[in-house]
């Protein structure tokens, strides 16, 4: 892999749950992110997938210092940015920029497009001298495929896809090294999504950006990513190169997730075997012991309740060099084609089912 730009290790974010008004005491915690490790190489795109509530957006917000981690480190070029403040933090933030999900709420409706894209220069005046800014903003508009004459328009005068282009231009203004894109196209119409994805892809190679791409659309993530991490309940359960994850998933959750994605091919309807998981994701306030996926897993055994599986290359694949030899946090990891791997409907063991009903209430 290329030299790492970002190294994340042991990242944790817990939001305390308190009770009482005068005497606040902590009664629990929402464990949004609960121990995440990954590295992002220079010029690489890492895709992060997972269902809602798995903590992928919280990871994104910590990377751009919008949230402070409860524990863990985020190293940018070797320096732990979670400990920085003031000037040093400001300097780092310049290099890690974010594209938000919702282009309707992430642009200030009272500012013109020129002001929105130019605002980063107010905060980091060293990047562009005052007289130069307007030209720079117009260049950026041109780069993202908008008419440079639009600088004086307001966000409401643009469509969703155009607004997302404005958000991307703003993220690029400071020439960052890392872009964190949190569901950048999920609010857009299908016919417009492809346009924005192509733009992101082109800009990434043009500006040699490293990119963390978060989405729940698995085929989109595969298209744009070099490596893919799958998250479940605050942890990465499997991570590897795109073909390793999509063609040789070894974690049962990844297998279930991939098999549940509707395939736009009616011919596949009859042949496709799907793994349909029972129930919902447990609440992040009450995470199952051991492996957090065990309450919905058809392979779960006693060991899974007792021992937390580490995210590493599973033992049986450690000596092989095939595509199954990638990090997967499962005691019973197996490289099976997802078409034949499991029963159609998965019923977890009875007792865990009870917990789960309470958990989702």
């Amino acid at each position, binding site marked *: 892999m290329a030299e790492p730009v970002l190294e994340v290790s042991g990242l944790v974010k817990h939001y305390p749950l308190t009770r009482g008004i005068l005497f606040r005491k902590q009664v629990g915690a929402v464990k949004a992110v609960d121990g995440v490790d990954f590295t992002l190489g220079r010029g690489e795109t890492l895709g992060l997938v997972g*269902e*809602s509530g798995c903590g992928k957006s919280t990871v994104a917000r910590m990377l751009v210092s919008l949230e402070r981690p409860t524990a863990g480190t985020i190293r940018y070029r070797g320096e732990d940015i979670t400990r920085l403040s003031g000037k040093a933090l400001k300097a780092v933030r310049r290099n890690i920029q974010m594209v938000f999900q919702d282009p309707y709420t992430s642009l200030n409706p009272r500012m013109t497009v020129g002001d929105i894209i130019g605002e980063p220069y107010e905060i980091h005046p060293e990047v562009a001298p005052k007289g130069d800014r307007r030209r720079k903003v117009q260049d950026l508009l041109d780069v993202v495929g908008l008419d440079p004459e639009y600088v004086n328009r307001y966000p409401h005068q643009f*469509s969703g*896809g*155009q607004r997302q282009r404005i958000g991307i231009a703003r993220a690029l203004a400071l020439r960052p090294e890392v872009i964190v894109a949190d569901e950048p196209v999920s609010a857009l*119409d*299908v*016919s*417009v*999504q*492809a*346009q924005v*994805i*192509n733009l992101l*892809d*082109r800009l990434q190679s043009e500006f040699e950006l490293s990119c963390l791409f978060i989405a*729940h659309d*698995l*085929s*989109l993530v*595969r*298209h744009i990513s070099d490596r893919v991490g799958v998250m479940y309940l605050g942890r990465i359960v499997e991570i590897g190169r*795109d073909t390793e994850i999509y063609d040789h998933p070894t974690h049962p959750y990844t297998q*279930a*997730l991939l098999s*549940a*994605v*509707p*395939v*736009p*091919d*009616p*011919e*596949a*309807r009859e042949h496709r075997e*799907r793994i*349909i*998981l*029972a*129930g*919902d*994701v447990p609440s992040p306030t009450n995470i199952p012991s051991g492996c957090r996926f065990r309450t919905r897993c058809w392979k779960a055994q006693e060991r899974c309740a007792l021992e937390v599986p580490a995210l590493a290359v599973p033992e049986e694949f450690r000596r092989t060099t095939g595509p199954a030899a990638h990090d997967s946090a499962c005691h019973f990891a197996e490289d099976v084609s997802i078409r034949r791997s499991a029963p159609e409907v998965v019923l977890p063991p009875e007792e865990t*089912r009870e917990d789960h*009903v309470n958990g*989702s*209430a």
Partner: protein
Amino acid sequence: MLLEVRDLHVEFRTRDGIARAVNGVTYGVDAGETLAVLGESGSGKSVTAQAVMGILDTPPGRITGGEILFQGRDLLKLKEEERRKVRGAEMAMIFQDALSSLNPVVCVGDQLGEMFVVHRGMGKKDARARAVELMDQVRIPGAKERVKDYPHQFSGGMRQRIMIAMAIALEPALIIADEPTTALDVTVQAQVMDLLAELQREYHMGLILITHDLGVVADVADRIAVMYAGRIVESAPVHDLYKAPAHPYTRGLLDSIPRLDQKGQELYAIKGLPPNLMHIPSGCAFHPRCPMARDVCRTDVPPPYEVSEDRASACHFWRECLDG
């Protein structure tokens, strides 16, 4: 035919002008059949469904033409009182957002039971018992204990099951599901779609599935109608349409799905933006975005050309499109 919509027109009068949301939609569903209505936001797919259900906001909405034949009767000619008897009992709707479609201050048992109290004149106790049966039927674990819970106490997937339970309560002949799984995660989406398909088979209902997801359509639908700017641009059996689309818009949508063998290449993108309903382009509404557009497309509205016996395309050049 169970339901036939013929040349339906709906417009909305707004301060800025008239938005023509539906401009001559014709489709039909048989008992036991699943029709998918595919389109992007603003294509008129939901407005058509609301007109069929009789829940269109009027004003500002107005049905300016067409017929909605349900089991032989034209619903648009019925009085509101008669319509109300049809709604819920003979046709039912499942909405995208279950949390905002359920009453937050009434427990789910009462909301389900209300169907039986209002339409069947049942007593409260019997209605409650039927509510528990329904919750069992849509596989909500512990139905008996949970019947007194409120909507916010259920997860998203469970709430959507309650919506489905409410829709099938009176065993209607037709169900309209408007983006029923869009708000759900993939693993839960698969559960809910499976349940819906199973209940449909069991009761031999007609199902209109409104969606923008080509994957969901391929998984469950028999026929598909693709909408653009308030018109149906292509309608076909699902297998035929995916094999060879006969309209450039359908082709564009299918081509813009990321595929394995095209990784690293640019995705195909339909250029331009969906039209503004206040100013729908002349001729074929898709012509400003169409790679095949010629002069005739700017002037003449394409009628639904018959491609084969059960297939139609509203494109002057459907033959070329079909050949690729």
